[in-house]
């Protein structure tokens, strides 16, 4: 018997839970402007997120999937992607969407039950929110294959959850990306829970990153609450994909500090102590403490940032609430490029009912 293959799975962390820099941190650790920008984006996301939950609680939004505690992942993804790369998120990547230029009122419209929210005014090529778990991943390989076909140095970046790694589409996407050397990155937001199903119940694999190995692509585990580590693994993966070096699976370790959605009650199935322990390593406090320690951030900066974000969010909420109700006939108007003749009569019948019929 002989060993025919041997693999290692690496975990990357530069800023630990106590906000201490571990040795050999990359240049980003010394980049005040960049780290402050990442911090601002995380706080902006968190304030928006909290507002969305509040809107749901007061009946002004539908079910909403918050991203509390996982902001660093989406913020860093959006920060490191080039504008013309394409993002294919799940439903929890508010941070990435905001970073990609999706407007807050658009996300509110969507979660408020209005399709117009996915017609992004500024961010035209990114995919809409994907609810059927893991289906965005195979689509991302198609986006990547289109880039490769046209010899464009662009990357398709998909984000899914830990539960999504049990789906066939997850394995199929990784496998194709390996076989075809596609410019594809799959970021797993491993927030430890798939609704009430714990990470361990999802898979006996020691890491999710190792699922890359069977597909013959690069795989790495990263502290998903450490923006310095996230940016550095994303840079490696994006650069490699852009240069034709193939796909990467990034398992970003984080924790869902919130309920699964506003329709969920996580207290039913997970111990409060676990949540409290996880809170100790959450990303916003972690980075703020580091910025403080460097003398790059103070209470006034914090106050000013929070005020600015709240003002921005309030403006978005106002625009959302002031958006006139969709026309009922809108149901028909985006099914096809133009309304097929056989659908003209049913559309007219709907129009005749009026908007409150």
């Amino acid at each position, binding site marked *: 018997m002989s060993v025919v293959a041997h693999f290692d799975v690496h975990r990357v962390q530069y800023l630990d839970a106590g906000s201490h820099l571990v040795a050999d941190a990359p240049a980003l650790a010394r980049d005040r402007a960049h780290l402050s920008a990442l911090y601002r984006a995380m706080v902006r996301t968190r304030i928006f997120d909290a507002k969305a939950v509040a809107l749901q609680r007061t009946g002004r939004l*539908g*079910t909403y999937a918050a991203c509390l505690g996982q902001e660093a992942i989406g913020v860093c993804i959006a920060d490191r992607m080039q504008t013309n790369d394409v993002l294919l998120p799940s*439903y929890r990547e508010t941070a990435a969407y905001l970073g990609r230029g999706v407007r807050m009122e658009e996300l509110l419209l*969507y*979660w*408020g*039950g*209005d*399709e117009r929210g996915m017609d992004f005014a500024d961010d035209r090529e990114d995919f809409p*929110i994907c*609810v*059927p*778990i893991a289906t965005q991943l195979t689509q991302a390989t198609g986006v990547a294959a289109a880039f490769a076909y046209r010899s464009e140095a662009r990357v398709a970046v998909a984000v899914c959850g830990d*539960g*999504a790694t*049990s*789906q*066939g589409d997850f394995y199929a996407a990784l496998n194709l990306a390996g076989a075809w050397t596609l410019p594809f990155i799959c970021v797993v937001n491993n927030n430890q829970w*798939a*609704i*009430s*199903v714990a990470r361990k*119940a*999802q*898979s006996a694999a020691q890491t999710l990153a190792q699922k890359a190995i069977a597909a013959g692509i690069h795989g790495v585990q990263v502290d998903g609450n450490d923006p310095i580590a996230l940016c550095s693994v994303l840079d490696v993966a994006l650069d490699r994909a852009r240069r034709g070096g193939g796909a990467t699976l990034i398992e970003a370790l984080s924790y869902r500090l919130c309920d699964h*959605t506003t*329709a*969920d009650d996580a207290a*039913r*199935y997970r111990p409060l102590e676990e949540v409290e322990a996880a809170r100790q390593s959450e990303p916003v406090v972690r980075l703020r403490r580091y910025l403080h320690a460097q003398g790059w951030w103070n209470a006034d900066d914090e106050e000013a940032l929070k005020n600015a974000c709240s003002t921005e969010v309030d403006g978005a909420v106002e625009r959302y609430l002031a958006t006139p*109700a*969709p026309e*009922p006939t*809108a*149901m*028909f108007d985006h*099914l096809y490029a133009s309304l097929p003749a056989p*659908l003209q009569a*049913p559309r007219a019948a*709907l129009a005749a*009912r009026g*908007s409150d*019929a």
Partner: protein
Amino acid sequence: MPEITLVEAINLALARALEEDERVLVFGEDVGHNGGVFRATSGLQERFGERRVRDTPLNEAMIAGMAIGMAAQGLRPVAEIQFSGFIYPALDQLINHAARLRNRTRSRLSCPLVLRAPAGGGIRAPEHHSESNEVLLAHIPGLRVVMPSSPRQAYGLLLAAIRDPDPVVFFEPTRLYRLLRETVDDDAAALPLDTCFVLREGRDLTLVAWGASVHESLLAAEQLEAQAISAEVIDVATLSPLDMSTILASVAKTGRCCIVHEAPRSGGWGAEIAARLADEGLFSLLAPVARVTGYDTVMPLFRLEGTYLPDAARIIAAARRLLEYA
């Protein structure tokens, strides 16, 4: 006897089935400790243990495939698909295998499984959580497709589905989960499959519906009564195989029929019923067969779902049009 909701009736039937038959197993995403996202399996894992009530990894194709394997082994799997909008990865297993394992092996192997899936709109749910795709499965020979319309129907039909020797897809109307309460006797009595139920007798027209549309039809019938129009209401209950005899007998009496369902009109299960009425009941009909359905559009997000879904007002309008035919 306390009055219970439809989702509690599901829970009661599952507990009864687990109690009476060791071969019954309940599994799916979040059905264990959490008791299901709608609480349909609440308390079952505590009571019957993780051996019998168990969370699975997140994969619908696997859930269906595993249920088939268990069923062929003589177990009675009752698996949950979290929402009917997520059943699609399971279709390969359901259509190519569950529906035909018996036929392919000339009954050497069979597939006594139940796949439960919450379905339908009207609860302001997120995208893909309000689908009415029952016709996709009703079209498949070898499957039974069942949809209850009340707590009592849910209890009796689910027990029947679990005891049935063949695969059953059991759609549960989410809008009715907590809308109505009624007393349900936990007497282990199943209701018959493959038969429609006449829930209300009438003379002037027949309303045919399933799931939440039964509720709207009953409301419409009540209001029509006040307008001196007497509507019979039929709960189809088992969509496939379809019991046309009950519908034909009713239409022979009333001469008018309006079919109500949430799914898009074209190719919906109402089309099959209308075709069968044309085939077998043409000379009973005093008016064309009417359909009150969803539109031929994607199920809209919730701001427009009230417009999309059939309601009592649309049913009444259709009924009145039918009555205009003398």
